[in-house]
């Protein structure tokens, strides 16, 4: 066992690292109310004007709308693909089964710019015009793995005997799926869906490569940060995005592992 001093040292270091994780978020929080356009420390005065300016920005509102549309479609498509892939891997033996999860994780495991460029060059070659749809396709591609991981983890934890029991009691494949499989998967699907939504809503590396003239919220924030004059408005939007993104993630964490909170985040 570790000595007492070592324990105290680790405790202090752990606290400092946690502080490191949260101080920048607090800075975003504080500067959203900063009265001045300059980001000097300490802030001179407090104001709420950036929030109303942000809301009056029609580009911002359009970007927000686009981001929500993209995230909804990408989540829906990846739910479908992720579930199907998870079922196939869980229920069947087939050639290449071991490499399915490897291939699915590639879009996020490879450096983001590689996935972005690969999809862009493929779409460019086939003559597709870049639009919200191309962004949705890109997002769905890297969201699949999130759903797949959640669903397959749940499938592995469920015993096969309840499926057999359902079949023995005379249910056909559909009924078993509808009344037995789906309910056991429900929370995993919601959790995976929330994470996929959060992942898509926030994405910029792939989005930049696959979009035409359309704005998404991350693109809007990116442009606003590049113009120092617009930074305070970007900051107000950033604060709202943080609050909005933390809510689904918090619930996803609770839903994914209801019985053992210790396994959160795996």
């Amino acid at each position, binding site marked *: *066992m570790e*000595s007492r001093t070592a324990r105290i040292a*680790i405790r202090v*270091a*752990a606290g400092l*690292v*946690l502080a*490191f*994780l949260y101080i*920048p*978020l607090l*800075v*975003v929080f504080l500067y959203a109310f900063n009265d001045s356009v*300059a980001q*000097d*420390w300490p802030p001179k005065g407090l104001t709420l004007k950036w929030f109303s300016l942000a809301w009056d920005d029609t580009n911002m509102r359009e970007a927000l709308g686009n981001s929500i549309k993209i995230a909804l479609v990408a989540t829906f498509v990846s739910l479908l*693909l992720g579930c*199907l*892939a998870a079922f*196939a891997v869980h*229920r*069947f033996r*087939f050639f290449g089964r071991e490499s399915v999860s490897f*291939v*699915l994780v*590639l879009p996020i*495991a*490879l*450096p*983001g*710019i*590689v996935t972005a*460029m*690969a999809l862009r*060059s*493929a779409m460019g070659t086939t003559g597709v015009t870049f639009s919200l749809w191309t962004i949705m396709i890109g997002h*769905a*591609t890297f969201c699949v793995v999130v759903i797949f991981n959640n669903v397959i983890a749940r499938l592995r934890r469920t015993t096969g005997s309840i499926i057999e029991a359902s079949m023995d009691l005379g249910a056909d*494949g*559909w009924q078993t799926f509808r009344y037995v499989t789906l309910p056991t998967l429900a929370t995993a699907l919601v959790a995976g869906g929330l994470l996929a939504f959060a992942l898509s809503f926030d994405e*910029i*590396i792939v989005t930049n490569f696959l979009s035409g003239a359309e704005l998404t919220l991350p693109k809007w*924030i*990116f442009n606003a*940060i590049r113009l120092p004059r617009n*930074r305070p408005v970007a*900051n107000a939007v*950033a604060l709202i*995005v*943080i609050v909005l*993104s*933390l809510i689904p*993630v*918090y619930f996803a*964490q609770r839903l994914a592992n209801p019985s053992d*909170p*210790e396994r*959160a*985040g*795996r």
Partner: protein
Amino acid sequence: MGDASKSVGLPRRGIRRGISGYLNVHPKVKLALILGIPLLWIGVVYLGSLGLLFANGFWRVDVLTSKIVHDWGLRNFQTLWTSKVYRTVTIRTVGIATAVAAVDVILAFPLAFYAARIARPRVRAAILVAVVLPLWSSYLVKTYAWVTITAPNGILDSVLRVFGIPNPDIGASQWAIFLTFAYLWLPFVVLPVYASLERIPESYLEASSDLGGKSWITFRRVIWPMSIPGVVAGSIFAFSLTLGDYIVPILVGNTKFIGNVIYDNVGVANNLPLAAAFAMVPVIVVAAYLALAKRLGAFEAL
């Protein structure tokens, strides 16, 4: 009434049963139906795109028409290798990515160790949620936070002045980029390190101390070797994410990374083959790192 509704319900039920029965007898058809769409999307479209990108790296752009010519050769790689600019960018990117991965492992360790081995279950759960929340919160917002922190006369500059550095102007330096990356990827490192530390049986630590091992010896001989799979997994995340990023170097610092050169070549310069060839560099570096980790036995404990 009851009979009527049954007779309406039955045939449909019959078809449904028929399909489901047919699928049970023909599992291959069932598998094809289930796996078909994901296989087409990820296996064909995505892997196909990757293959096309790879091929692009060996093609070239016609100077006059600025169209891509399918004229196979290694000229793009030659350009990357001989040009001093590209070499500098590569060394800078890989160097900072390595430093980010190393610092993140050092930062992640105490937090992961505290959560996995010292904290009570409730505190442990709270810490894990506290690590996961920033992991999922907006990437751009976190980057923006560092734009603010490293702004001229911002927080970091005033802190550094207290320590007697007169004109830090950290925002214009590569330190700002390094700090931002280290911050962004830290949660990705904490989680796998935590997972590997949690798996060490308590009896190993007791055995070490019973045999007279001091804290340091136990760390060096038991904890560290057993945490290697988590450390490797985490450092690959930090490494690979840094290699693939072009947003942070634009927003926080003023330096070009591999990602920025690729981005410029796809957009402004319109030289996709060169960009594709340069995109191979991070992939090859990550693959080499993985192979090295495997050789050193990093995955045997998994």
